[in-house]
């Protein structure tokens, strides 16, 4: 083991030394001029258009209290449900920090609060502070995300400003259900992650 450790340290030093020797003269860090990317468009409409394009479904609600009835209509057979949204009473399985992710193998549905939505690409940002067990949004058969119209952003530059101050653990942009086109470029929805994605906009 000592041998490996010394070798590792040596590689680190030799790599850094070689980089220092071989790199070109310092070039400036460019500034991003956000003005170039501004557009005056309807954020919710654009978001919904992009979400549909990536295979997701958007449902606008006047009030979050209407959500459970809609979910029951969309997923009538879901029985093993994890809800991480306090406004939903549909949860049948509760999770906490100690839950073994393997035990979520046959979850039918997960309901998670999205922190923000990105109009330009139909993505929703969620972190493990929203869903406790990192595997949840991927291992669940179907996924429901809820996002507020107040948390819509035009593009990724604004989004990174908005999430700059977070506690960085694990976070993910989810844009649509999992999919693949690896067999002859035929799009198939439902690869390894969720088979469907519904986004409620409230």
């Amino acid at each position, binding site marked *: 083991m000592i041998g490996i450790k010394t070798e590792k340290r040596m590689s680190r030093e030799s790599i*850094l030394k070689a980089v220092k020797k071989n790199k070109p003269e310092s070039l400036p860090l460019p500034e991003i001029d956000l003005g170039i990317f501004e557009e005056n468009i309807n954020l919710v409409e654009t978001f919904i258009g992009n979400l549909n394009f990536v295979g997701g479904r958007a449902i606008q609600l006047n009030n979050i209290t209407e959500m459970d009835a809609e979910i029951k209509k969309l997923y009538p057979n879901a029985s093993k449900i994890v809800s991480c949204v306090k406004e939903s009473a549909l949860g049948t399985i509760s999770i906490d920090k100690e839950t073994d992710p393997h035990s979520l193998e046959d979850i039918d549905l997960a309901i998670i609060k999205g922190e923000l939505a990105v109009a330009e690409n139909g993505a929703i940002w969620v972190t493990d502070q929203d869903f406790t067990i990192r595997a949840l949004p991927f*291992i669940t058969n179907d996924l429901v995300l809820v996002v507020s119209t107040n948390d819509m952003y035009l593009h990724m530059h604004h989004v990174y400003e908005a999430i700059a101050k977070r506690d960085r653990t694990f976070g993910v942009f989810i844009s649509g259900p999992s999919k693949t086109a690896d067999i002859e470029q035929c799009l198939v929805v439902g690869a390894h992650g969720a088979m469907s994605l519904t986004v409620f906009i409230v």
Partner: protein
Amino acid sequence: MAHADEAAIFNKDEAKVDWHDKALWFVRQKRDKSAHNVQGWEELRNLASALKANVLSNLDTYLLQFEENAKKNGVTVHWAANAEEHNKIVHSILVKHGVKRMVKSKSMLTEECHLNPYLEANNIEVIDTDLGERIVQLAKEPPSHIVLPAIHKKKEEVDVLFQEHLGTKPCDGDPQYLTGEARKHLRDKFLKAEAAITGVNFAIADTGGFVVCTNEGNADMGVHLAKVHIACMGMEKLIPQEKHLGVFLRLLGRSATGQPITTYSSHFNKPAPGKEMHIVIVDNGRTEQLSREDFRASLHCIRCGACMNTCPIYRRSGGHSYKSTIPGPIGSILSPGLDLKKHSSLPFASTLCGSCSDVCPVKINIHEQLYKWRQIIVKEVPQPGVKKNILKIAGRVLANSAMYHVAGKSARFMLKYAPRFVIYSKLNAWGKARDLPEVKNGNFDDWYKNRKKNE
């Protein structure tokens, strides 16, 4: 074997080549449509290019900053000078945890290092979990494309492969059924794996975090179920700050497949409680490429695959004809840097039409670098007679910088002015069995003069 000979083999199945050609061109068109939807697309490309140039010029500083921040987050950072060290490091982590079963999401770096055979020789099961990669793994082939690993396979071939290995029913290559069966098969592998390996799309110096992009969700399924996560990255994957992801994530998915962003863009900073996260930073020839002024910019590459989808040679010769881990235009620049003699035919697998440079999201001057490799190769690698002749003729055009400048933008120029045997000779497998478009509208001189007038 030279690239053209390999390409000739691929061209034996004409129907398949036509399909391959069209399928990739369709992906290119999706890229165009998607790019045109973005206000300031060209500015995004400029920014990405300038950011990568800044990274390379301060790479040692950024590497140290990244390491320090990752360590603060509870991540273990390893350094590997070459493929062998990389494989040893990964293996030692697996041994420490007694891992016998491992899942891996897409990582061209681990392909480059030949990690799978190394681990398998050490009795560790390695399962590639990206569907395309699983297909080629079962077929015992390397990926033929960096984003679409099984693009060279017809659905009927996948059908037969799955019957043999996964026990599926014959289905005439029904993609829905086959994907569903792969999902079941791999789900079992995810649940049983003790460790997960992923690649890294972007590593962020100022936070010590990294981002992995997939459409299938396979990287996340692996990582969040296993107790150990090993992320392997080429040292050029660094970007300075998290906000720069805004630039790169806007470009990557659109350039790759025309999607506005990949389905999952996962941001890893800290390991989950009770779990371990490792990052292996790999050199393997990158510092050497950094020293080559003419080829340095090839390290900007974010592995989107756009240059392959657009390349008339790639589309008609298939990824395997390049015999290098990264095929296509960018592979033809990177591979000669690793082994000039072995890969000496690759920079000639190009019409120098410049389409690759036009679509590259980080604005690598790919076709110019190909031309530069040709000059080096002609000097340093002994050429067979027939190729020398072609080079002489091509050389007359290419040596004249004004002519070259014009020619570089136009594949048609090469079609019209390259002698017939350059296009139809054995060396040009992609010219065979295919009527190349006739070039109309007067001759080059007229066109050139007109162009001058219009300037």
